[in-house]
C-alpha cells in the first residue's frame, strides 16, 4: 500500500492505496464519489473523465498514486451545492442527455474544451469531445449545450442558481 495525499472536490484526503488502483476506482470505492462512472475498460468512452489539476483526464488511465499531491475535481465538485455550473445548466436546457450515464464525463470534458477554446465552432466541439461516447443523443444537442455554455462562460455570467428540473 502507498500513502497518497489528494484534494478531491475541495476536501483533503490522506489514504493508503494499492499501487495498481486506478484513480476512478479510488474515487468511487474509497471516497464514495460515485458520480464519476466507469463505462469501458479501454479508455475509449470517457465516462470517467475528471479534472486533474484543472485538466480533463480519463480517470481510468490515471493511477491513484499519480494523483498524489494533486487537486481532483469531479462532476460533484464543479458547482457549489444547490447551484449549477454553466455547462450543467446548458446540458439541461439543450436536452444534451438522455440516460445520463455519459453525462458526468461529457460535462467534464466539455468544460476543459471551453477552457481551451472559449468560442468553439460546431466542428471544433465535435472534435473536442470525440473521446467521449454517448449512445443516446446523437450528440447534436450536446454540441448545442457546449456552445451555449461557452457563451455564458466567456461572457463572465455568474453561475446559475437555477432550481433543477421543471424548467420550460
Amino acid at each position, binding site marked *: 500500500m502507498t500513502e497518497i495525499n489528494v484534494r478531491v472536490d475541495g476536501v483533503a484526503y490522506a489514504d493508503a492505496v*494499492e499501487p495498481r488502483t486506478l484513480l476512478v476506482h479510488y474515487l*468511487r*470505492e474509497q471516497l464514495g*464519489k*460515485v*458520480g*464519476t*462512472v*466507469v*463505462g*469501458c*475498460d*479501454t479508455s*475509449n*468512452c470517457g*465516462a470517467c473523465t475528471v479534472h486533474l489539476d484543472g485538466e480533463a483526464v480519463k480517470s481510468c488511465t490515471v493511477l491513484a498514486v499519480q494523483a498524489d499531491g494533486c487537486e481532483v475535481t*469531479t*462532476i*460533484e465538485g464543479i*458547482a457549489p451545492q444547490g447551484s*449549477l455550473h454553466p455547462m*450543467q445548466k446548458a*446540458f*439541461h*436546457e439543450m*436536452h444534451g*442527455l*438522455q*440516460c*445520463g*450515464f*455519459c*453525462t*458526468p464525463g461529457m*460535462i467534464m470534458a466539455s468544460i476543459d474544451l471551453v477552457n481551451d477554446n472559449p468560442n468553439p465552432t*460546431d*466542428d471544433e*466541439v*465535435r*472534435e473536442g*469531445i*470525440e*473521446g*467521449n*461516447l*454517448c*449512445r*443516446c*443523443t*446523437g*450528440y*447534436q*444537442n*450536446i*454540441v448545442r449545450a457546449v456552445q451555449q455554455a461557452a457563451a455564458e462562460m466567456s461572457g463572465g455570467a455568474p453561475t446559475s442558481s437555477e432550481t*433543477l*428540473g*421543471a*424548467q*420550460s
Partner: protein
Amino acid sequence: MTMVDEPTGTQAPEKEVGKARRRKEDARLITGKTTWTDNMSLPGMLHIAVVRSPVAHARISNVDVSAAKAAPGVIEVYTGRDFAEEQGSLPCAWPVTPDMVNPGHPSIAVDSVNHVGEAVALIVARSKVAAQDAVELVDIDYDVLPPVLRMEEAVKDGADLVHDELSSNTSYHFVFDAGDAGLGGNTDQAFADAEVVVSRRFVNQRLIPAFMEPRSCVVSPQGDNYTMWSSTQIPHILRVMLAMVTGVPEHKLRIIAPDVGGGFGGKLQVNPEEVLALLVARRLGKPVKWTETRSESLMTAHHGRDQIQFIDIAADREGNVKGLKVRLLADMGAYLRLITPGVPALGAFMFPAIYKFPAYHFECDGVFTNKVPTDAYRGAGRPEATFAVERIMDELAVELGMDPLELRRKNWIQAQEFPFTTIAGLEYDSGDYEQATQQALQLIGYDELRAEQRQRRESGDPVQLGIGFSTFTEMCGLAPSRVLGSLAFGAGGWEHASIRMLPTGKVEVVTGSTPHGQGHETAWSQLVADELGVPFEDVEVLHGDTSISSRGLDTYGSRSLVVGGTAVVKAAEKVVAKARKIAAHLLEASEDDLEFTGGKFSVRGTPGTGLGIQEIALAIFAAHNYPEGIEPSIDADATFDPVNFSFPHGTHICAMEVDTETGMVKIRKYASVDDIGKIVNPLIVEGQIHGGLAQGIAQALYEEAVYDDDGNLTTGTFVDYLVPAASDLPHFDTGNTVHEAPGNPIGAKGVGEAGCIASTPAVVNAALDAVRHLGVTDIQMPLTPERVWRAIHQGGDGGERATAGTIAWGGASTETTTGVSTDASSLGGDR
C-alpha cells in the same frame, strides 16, 4: 340576471402537452447524484466475478478451482456442477412455431460450452479486485469441437452441429403466406406472371446494443425475501421469470431498476448473471454484487440483427409492384433467450412496408451458431425488414429506369386510404406519406443537391454525391394482448398506472413502464398536469420498483407513451370521476351540474363557486365529510390494453459524398420528417429521433460484431466495435407531420425506434446512388472505406469483411479480446 355576464374566468389554461419542458430527470444526472446499480454498496456485500469460456465450442473435461479457492479474499468458487440441479433454463418467451426447437439455456455451463464468453465458473470474494484476480487461477480443460459460425453452411445437410443432441442447427421454420391467410393472391403466380423480377441477397450484420452503463446487479437476502437491484429495462418481467426459473416465490422477490444507463433492447433480457447472483445470494445468505466490464458486455450481453436476407420483388414495366417474397436466415446464436426467435418473425409483418403489394410470402429459418445469442436491439425485426424493402425498391427503380421516389409514390398507400389493411394483415392507422416526403425534400434542399450531383458526374469529380431515400413505417405501441397471444408470445402487451392523491395536493404517478433515459418522469407529469389541472411541478412519477409499481410490462417497442401513457391518462380520468362525487357533495350540487376545468370543479352557471381537486385530496384524507356509500379515496388504477398497434411513418433523405479514390464516405446532409402522431414534448421527441438516427447510421457506416474462424469476437472492445463519436456523425435536420393515432386518447404513435429503423437504408441507398454509374450495385454494411473502395475498383459488394493483415481486419485483435489464440485465429481466419 344581469346584462353582462361576470367574467367566468378566463381562457383555457395553458396545456402542458406540446410544451418543450426541460426534463425533471436531469437534476440528478447532471450533478452526479445518481443511483446506478454499481453505485450500490451493502454491509458485508460480496463480489462475483465470472470465469468465461475462451473457446466457442467444447466439452468441459476437467475443472480445477483449488488454486482460486485458496486465493486471498476468495469466499467460494462455484462451477456449473454446483448449480446444475437448481439453475433451470433461462426463459424463452416466444416459441414462434409449435415445433420450435429450444435446447435450453443454462446460466452457467455444466458439460459443454457453446459460445466464447459463456459462464463456466463463479468467483465470490470479499472485494471486486480479489474476485477478478482469482479468475485467472481457475483451470479448465476443454475438448474443443468444431465451431459452427456461418448460417448458410450451418443449415446444410451434414453440417457440424451446435447442439449434438439435436438433429440440425435449425430451431424453427416460420412461414407467413398472405395467400394462405386470405389477405392476398398467390405469390408464385404473381412472380410467374410478372414482367420484371429483381432478386437480392442482403446481409444485415450482427450488431451490439452497447448501452453506456454496463450491466450490474446486486442481490440482498432478508430472511426468505430477496431484493435485486438490476440495470434492466424489465423489472416486472424479470421478477416473474426469476421466480419461474429459480423457484423463489414471486411474492418473496422484489426487483428494483434504479437509474438505468440506456438499454436499446439490450437490457430487455433475463441475464444468466442475474439468475446466478440470486442463486449465490440464496446459497450464502449474503448480499452479492456483479458488475460487468465493457469487454464482458460486448462479448456476452445479447447481440442484435444478424440476418441473411433473400428478397425478391415482382413488378410490371410501369412500376406497379405485383409481389414480394422474403426468405431469411436469422442467427439465433447458441441459445434462445427471452425473445430471440420472435425478433425476425416480428419482421414478417413489416416487409410489405408502406406499399400495396397484392401478393406476399415470408419464411424464416432460425439458425443456431456458436455465438452469443441475438435478441432485441432498437427496432427488433423492423429495421431489418425496412432495410431490405427500402433497398430492393431502389434496385427495382434502377431495373425499371425509374426515379426511386416515383416508384415509391406509385405504390404507397394514399392518405385517403387510411385505415388500410396491408397484405400482412396489419391495419395501418393514419398518415400521409406524400406530405412527409414533400417536407423532407424541402428540408434537405433536394433540387440543389441533384443539380450538384449532375455537375460532379459531368466533371468526373473524384468525390461523387448520392441521394438516398427511406420512406418507412413501423409497428409500435407493443402491443394488443390478443394479437400477442395469436403470435404465441408468452405475455400480454397491456400497461398499468396508478395515481395517488396526497393530502397536500401533490400527486404520485406510478407507471409500470420502466424508463432508462426516455424521460417518462417529465412526459408523464405533463399528461397528468393536463388531466388533473395540477401544476407540472406537483407531480412525481415513480417507477422501476416492483414493490412500488406492482404491475407493469416495462419499456420496449416504442410502447411507453402509447400504452403506458394511456394507462396514466385513464387512471387520471378515474381520479377525476371519483373526485367529482366528493365535489358534488361538498358543493351541494348535482354531479351533472359540475364542470371540471383547470383543476377545479365548479357549478355550471354559478360563477365564483369552485373546489380544487387538490383541496379535495385533503378533504378526503381527513374524511370527515364525504358521501355515503363510497370509499374515502380518490386514488385510482388503470390498465390499458390497446386494440391495435400504432404506425409511425416518415421520409428520411440522406445526401452522401463518396470519395472514389479512397472509399471514404461522408454524410453531407441528413433530413428526416417523422409522423409520430401527437407530440407530448417536442424536446424529448427530437432527442429520440437524433439518437435513433445515430444508431441507424452507425449500422450503415461503422458497427459490426465480427467473429473470427474460431468463434472469437474480434470486436470485443470499444477500440474495435465502432460506436460513433460526435465527430463521426452529421448535423440532422428533423421535422414532423402530425396525424394523430386513433387508437389511444393521447394520439401518440411512439418515437423511440423511428430514427434507427428509417435511417440505415437511406444511408446505404445514398452511397449506392453516388457510385451506381461506376457499376456498383451493392456494398455490404458497414460501409468501411475499404469495402467501398473494393466495390468501386474490384466489383462485387466489397466483401464480407476486410482481408487479413489490413488494419480493418478483425482477426488481428483476437489475442487481446479473449486471451486465447489458436493457429487459425492468429493466422487470420479470413472468411
